[in-house]
C-alpha cells in the first residue's frame, strides 16, 4: 500500500504508516531509544540529541524523534557508535546538572536518572565549575523552578504554546546561559501549568504543593478519577503510608483527558489530609455541637428525620459516587419515606428537568468528548468551558488550532474561548430560548431581526458557518436547559436545529455539559424529586416497577425540588433536611436565602468532611470520607461511568457515605444489605436501565459510557 512503508530497524522488518517517526516505529518493535525532548503529544524539536541513531545513507547520525520513516530505510540503534553517542549526550547533559538527586523530588522517578543508569557514562570527565543560577525560583504560587537542574528540553515551553496556548513561560537568554523563565512580574498564570511539572524530565519544575512531601518509592499509586468537574479526568492518587495523599498525577485516558489535567484538579489534593477535617460525629446539645458516638449521632439523626414525617427532604451531591447517591435516595425514599430528593438547591425552571430528562432518555444527548476532535464545527452553548470543564477546553483548542475546526461560542460573557471562535455569540442571560430559536430559524432561512439579545447579522453569520458543516459537535450546558427560563423551549429549538442540520446531511453529536464530577451520575441513579432511578417518571406503573425491584414501595407522589425545599422550609412545609456532601449555605448566588431557610428547619443532618457553613447549622453532623478513602463510580459529562479506588484509610473516625447511610438505615430498622461496594453497583445496574450490563470489572480502568439509544 502506498500509505505504508517498510523499514528495517536493528535488522528487524516493520511496516508502519507513512509519516511515522523513526522513534515510533522503533517503539512498535519494542526497541527503546532514550529521549528527553521528544513527547508523543507534541511536535518534535530534535533539540536534546539524545535519540541519535544511524540511518543508512545519511552521512551523519540522525535524531529518531524527528526523522520520518522512508521506504527501505535501514536504521541501527545497537551499534557501539550509537551507544557511544547516547553516552556522550548524557555526559553533556550531566556536566551542568547538579547531582542533588537525594533532595530532588524527581529522584527515583527521573528520566535523566534512568537514562543515565542505562546508557550513561560511569563517570564525568568534567572538572570545572558547574553553571549556577539562583534557585529555587517560584514561577507562580504553584510551580517552582530549579534552573540548575533544567536540561532545556523545552517540553514545558512547548506544552504551554502547542497545547494550552497560554505562553507564559519562555526560554530566555542564549546558549550556555539559556534558562526557562517568565516575563518579570508576570507569573506563570495558566490553567494547565501543572502539566509542565509532569512533563519535565528532570526535577526542574516542581509542584509547590508536593515539594518535599514524599520520595517516589514511598508512595502508592491508586487509579482514580478527579472529583473536580464533569470531565472526569483520570488520575493516579499518590499516597504515603496509606494515610496521606500527597499528589495527583495524570493517567492518560485518550477518550477523556488525553493525559492532561487542569491546575484546579491537580493541585486540589490537600483537602484530604486537612487537619480541619471532621473526625467525630457531632450532635447539637443545649444549642452547641458536641462530639458524640456514632450510635448516638445516628439515632439522633434518624429520630429527627422521622419526627418530620412527610415533611422531610434530602439533598445529595454532585461529587459523591453513584453508589453513595443511590443509597442516599433509596434511604430517603424507603426509610424516611419522601421523594423530596435533589442533587442541588439551585432554582430550576419549570419543566427544565423534564427537558433534560427527555434529552437524555430520547438519545438527543448522545455525544462524546471525542466528537469534538472529529467535527468540523463545534458549537458551545451556555458554558464557560475553560473555567467549568477546563480539560475540555484543551480538546476545543486543539480542534480549532490543529484540525481547523470552527467554533461557535455562545456565552453571555467574553470568556477565554471567545478568541478561538469563528462566531462569538454573547446572548443575554435569561434569553437562551430566544437565542436558540433564533439560530434554528436563521438556519431555515427565516433569520429574525434579533434574538436573545443578538443582532440578526450575528445569528446569521453563525448559521452560515453551520450550514457548511458536515460534522457538528453541539455542546449544551445543563444550565441553559434546566435552570434558565424556558428550558423546554430551548430544548425544542435545539431539537429542531439538529433536525434541520441532519436533514441536510450533516452528522450532529449533541453532548450535555454538566459541571459536577458526578452530576450526571446523581441524576442517573435517582437524585431527582420527579423521577425514580433510571429516569422513571414517578407514576403508578413506575412506582410498582421500583417496588418490585426494591422489595418495598417508594412514595408514589413526586417530591419537592431542592429549591422548593428552600421555599417550603421558610413556611414550615419542610421541617427536616438531610444534606449529603454539599454546602448550600455557601451557595455562590443564593447563600443568604438558603441559610435563612435552613435556619427555619426543625432538624438538619449534614454529612461532610468539614464543618461547613451548613454543618454549623446542623443538629447532627456526620464525618464522611473523601473520594480517596472510598471506592465507587463517577459518571462524567459524556455519561462515562468510571471507577474510583480507595487510596488511603479513612481519616480517624470518619466513615464513607455509603457506610453512614447503611448504618443509618440499620438504626432505623431497615434491611439494607450489601456485602461490598460492588454489590451496590450491581443493584444500580439492575435498577437503572442505562447501567444495565455494566459491572465494576467490565468498566475497566478507563470507564464505559452508558448506551444511549436514539
Amino acid at each position: 500500500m502506498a500509505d505504508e512503508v517498510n523499514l528495517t530497524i536493528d535488522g528487524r522488518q516493520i511496516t508502519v504508516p507513512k509519516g511515522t517517526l523513526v522513534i515510533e516505529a522503533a517503539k512498535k518493535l519494542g526497541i527503546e531509544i532514550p529521549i528527553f525532548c521528544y513527547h508523543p503529544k507534541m511536535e518534535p524539536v530534535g533539540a536534546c540529541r539524545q535519540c541519535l541513531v544511524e540511518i543508512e545513507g545519511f552521512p551523519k547520525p540522525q535524531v529518531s524523534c524527528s526523522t520520518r520513516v522512508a521506504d527501505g530505510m535501514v536504521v541501527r540503534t545497537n551499534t557501539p557508535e550509537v551507544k557511544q553517542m547516547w553516552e556522550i549526550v548524557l555526559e553533556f547533559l550531566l556536566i551542568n546538572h547538579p547531582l542533588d538527586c537525594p533532595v530532588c523530588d524527581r529522584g527515583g522517578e527521573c528520566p535523566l536518572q534512568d537514562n543515565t543508569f542505562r546508557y550513561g557514562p560511569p563517570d564525568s570527565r568534567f572538572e570545572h565549575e558547574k553553571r549556577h543560577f539562583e534557585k529555587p525560583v517560584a514561577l507562580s504560587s504553584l510551580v517552582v523552578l530549579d534552573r540548575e537542574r533544567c536540561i532545556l528540553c523545552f517540553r514545558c515551553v512547548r506544552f504551554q504554546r502547542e497545547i494550552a496556548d497560554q505562553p507564559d513561560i519562555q526560554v530566555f537568554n542564549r546558549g550556555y546561559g539559556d534558562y526557562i523563565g517568565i516575563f518579570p512580574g508576570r507569573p506563570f498564570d495558566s490553567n494547565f501549568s501543572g502539566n509542565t511539572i509532569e512533563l519535565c524530565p528532570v526535577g526542574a519544575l516542581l509542584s509547590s504543593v508536593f515539594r518535599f512531601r514524599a520520595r517516589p518509592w514511598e508512595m502508592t499509586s491508586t487509579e482514580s478519577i478527579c472529583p473536580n468537574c464533569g470531565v472526569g479526568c483520570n488520575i493516579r492518587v499518590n499516597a504515603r503510608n496509606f494515610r496521606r495523599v500527597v499528589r495527583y498525577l495524570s493517567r492518560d485516558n485518550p477518550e477523556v483527558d488525553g493525559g492532561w489535567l487542569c491546575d484546579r484538579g491537580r493541585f486540589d489534593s490537600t483537602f484530604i489530609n486537612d487537619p480541619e477535617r471532621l473526625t467525630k460525629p457531632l450532635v447539637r446539645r443545649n444549642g452547641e455541637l458536641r462530639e458524640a458516638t456514632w450510635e448516638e449521632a445516628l439515632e439522633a439523626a434518624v429520630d429527627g428525620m422521622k419526627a418530620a414525617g412527610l415533611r422531610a427532604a434530602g439533598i445529595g451531591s454532585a461529587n459523591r459516587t453513584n453508589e453513595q447517591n443511590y443509597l442516599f435516595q433509596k434511604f430517603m425514599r424507603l426509610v424516611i419515606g419522601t421523594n423530596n430528593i435533589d442533587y442541588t438547591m439551585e432554582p430550576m425552571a419549570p419543566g427544565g428537568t423534564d427537558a433534560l430528562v427527555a434529552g437524555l432518555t430520547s438519545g438527543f444527548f448522545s455525544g462524546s468528548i471525542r466528537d469534538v476532535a472529529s467535527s468540523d464545527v463545534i458549537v458551545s452553548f451556555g458554558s464557560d468551558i475553560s473555567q467549568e470543564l477546563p480539560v475540555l477546553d484543551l480538546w476545543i483548542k486543539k480542534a480549532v488550532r490543529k484540525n481547523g475546526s470552527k467554533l461557535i461560542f455562545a456565552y453571555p460573557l467574553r470568556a477565554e474561548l471567545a478568541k478561538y471562535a469563528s462566531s462569538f455569540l454573547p446572548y443575554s442571560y435569561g434569553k437562551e430560548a430566544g437565542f436558540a430559536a433564533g439560530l434554528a430559524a436563521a438556519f431555515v432561512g427565516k433569520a429574525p431581526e434579533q434574538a436573545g439579545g443578538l443582532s440578526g447579522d450575528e445569528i446569521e453569520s453563525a448559521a452560515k458557518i453551520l450550514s457548511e458543516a458536515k460534522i457538528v459537535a453541539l455542546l449544551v450546558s445543563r444550565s441553559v436547559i434546566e435552570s434558565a427560563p424556558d428550558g423546554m423551549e430551548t430544548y425544542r429549538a435545539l431539537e429542531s436545529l439538529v433536525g434541520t442540520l441532519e436533514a441536510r446531511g450533516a452528522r450532529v453529536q449533541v453532548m450535555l455539559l454538566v459541571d459536577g464530577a458526578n452530576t450526571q451520575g446523581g441524576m442517573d441513579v435517582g437524585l431527582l424529586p420527579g423521577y425514580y432511578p433510571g429516569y422513571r417518571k414517578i407514576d403508578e406503573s413506575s412506582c410498582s416497577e421500583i417496588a418490585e425491584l426494591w422489595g418495598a414501595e417508594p412514595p408514589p407522589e413526586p417530591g419537592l425540588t431542592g429549591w422548593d425545599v428552600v421555599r417550603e422550609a421558610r413556611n414550615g412545609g419542610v421541617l427536616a433536611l438531610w444534606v449529603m456532601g454539599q454546602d448550600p449555605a455557601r451557595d455562590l448566588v443564593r447563600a443568604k436565602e438558603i441559610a435563612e431557610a435552613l435556619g427555619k428547619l426543625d432538624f438538619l443532618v449534614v454529612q461532610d468532611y468539614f464543618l461547613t457553613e451548613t454543618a454549623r447549622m446542623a443538629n447532627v453532623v456526620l464525618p464522611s470520607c473523601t473520594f480517596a478513602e472510598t471506592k465507587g463510580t463517577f459518571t462524567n459529562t459524556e455519561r462515562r461511568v468510571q471507577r474510583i479506588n480507595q487510596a488511603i484509610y479513612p481519616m480517624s473516625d470518619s466513615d464513607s457515605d455509603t457506610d453512614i447511610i447503611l448504618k443509618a438505615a440499620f438504626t432505623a430498622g431497615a434491611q439494607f444489605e450489601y456485602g461490598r461496594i460492588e454489590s451496590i453497583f450491581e443493584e444500580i445496574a439492575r435498577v437503572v436501565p442505562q447501567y444495565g450490563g455494566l459491572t465494576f470489572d467490565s468498566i475497566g480502568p478507563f470507564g464505559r459510557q452508558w448506551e444511549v439509544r436514539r
Partner: protein
Amino acid sequence: MRILFKHLDVPDIDDMDVYIREGGYKALEKALKEMSPDGVIQAVTKSGLRGRGGAGFPTGKKWAFIPKDPSLKKYLCCNADESEPGTFKDRELIVRNPHQLIEGMAICCYAIGSERAFIYIRGEYIEPARKMEQAIAKASNRGFLGERILGTDFNLQIQVYRGAGAYICGEESALLNSLEGIRGEPRLRPPFPAIKGLYESPTVINNVETLANVPHIVLNGGEWFASIGTEKSTGTKVVSMSGHVNNPGNYEVDMGTPVREIIFEHAGGILGGKRLKAYVPGGSSVPMLTEKHLDVGLDFESMLAAGSMLGSAGFMVMNEDTCIVRATLNMARFYAHESCGKCTPCREGTSWMVEMLESIEEGTGKMGYIDRLVDIANNINGRSFCALGDASAMPVLSSIEHFRDEYETHVSERGCPFAGDRGFALRGG
C-alpha cells in the same frame, strides 16, 4: 579577473546614476524583457555559481527547487548577517556598490516568482543598512523596484531587516526565525526553506556575494562565468584578508588562485616580515591550515582536499609568534558565546572546550585534556542541531592536529611558552 569589484575604482559607484552610467540595471532589463524566469535559472545553473556564504550549494539548483505554483507566495532573503569571524566582504559589497546587490536580488525574484524580498543584515551594520535603505528608495523611485518594474508586470518590494547581534542568525533557518520575530534558533529540516521557509512559504536564502554575481551572469551569460575559475568552482571569490598581514582588506580573485599568491602578493605578506604559522581560509568555522598548505588553490575542491574548506574565504593569518592555544581559545570562546542553546552537544560542549582550553593556556591543564578536547570536538561535530556545532569543533580539531606539540608544551611547562604578547600585540607594537 574582477567581476564584483569591477566598478570599485569608479568614484561614487554607490550612486545610482553612476551605476547606471556604468551599465547598471542593464542585466535586470535583459532578464525582464528578453528572458523567461526559467531562462534566468538556466543561465545561473549553467554558470556553475555556488553559494558564497560557505556551504557552496549550487545557486541555480536552489532556485529551481522553488515550486512553480503561481498561487504560492514566495520570498527571497538575502543573507547579509555577515558574522563569520574574519569575513567582511559583504559589508564592502553593500557599502561600495549597493545597486549591484539590488539588481541581483531583483533578477533572482523574477526567476523564482517572488514579489517580496528581505535583506537580513546584522544589527551592528548600521551604516550599511542605512546605505542599503537609501539605495532601495532610489531604485524604487526610478522604477527598478516597486510596481510594474520597467514596464513589465513584475512587482517587487525589498526591505532591509536588521538583526541584533546573533551569529546563529546567519544560519538560514535561524535567520528565518529571527525575521519572523521568534528566537533565532535554527529550525528542523525537512521541511526545507524551498518548500516551507519564511512565513511557511517557499523561500530562497542567498548570500550577498552570491546575489551580486547574478547581474553579471545574466549580462554575460552562464558560459562566460563558467569559463572563469576552475571547472567545479566557477567565477571569482572575494577574499577577506585579516590578521598578521601587511595589507588587510578584500580582494577579488579567480577561483583556484593559490593561497601563496593571495597572502604574499595581494595581502602583501606577513606583518613585520615574520614567518607564517597558520591561516584560517574560510572564517573560523573551517579547519586551519599551515605553511605546508600555501600552494593550495582557493576553490571548494582544493580546500577540501587540503583538509579545510573554502567557507566564506575570510582569511585570518597568524604569524610565527602566535600562541595557537590562545588563538584556538579565542575562537572557541566565540562559539560558546554564539551557541544558541537549543541542542545539547553545542550548548554544553562549546563551553566545556573553552574551560579546558583556558586551563591549558593558564598552565593548569592536564595532558589528558588534549585528547579530551579532540573527543569532545568530535562528539559535537555531526551531532549538533545545526552547523554551528560542527564549526565550533573545527578550530580545536585542526589546531591539535597541526600543533599538538604546542599543546603538550603548554601542559608540561605549566603555562604558555610564548613570551610577551604571544602574538597578540598591537599592530606595530
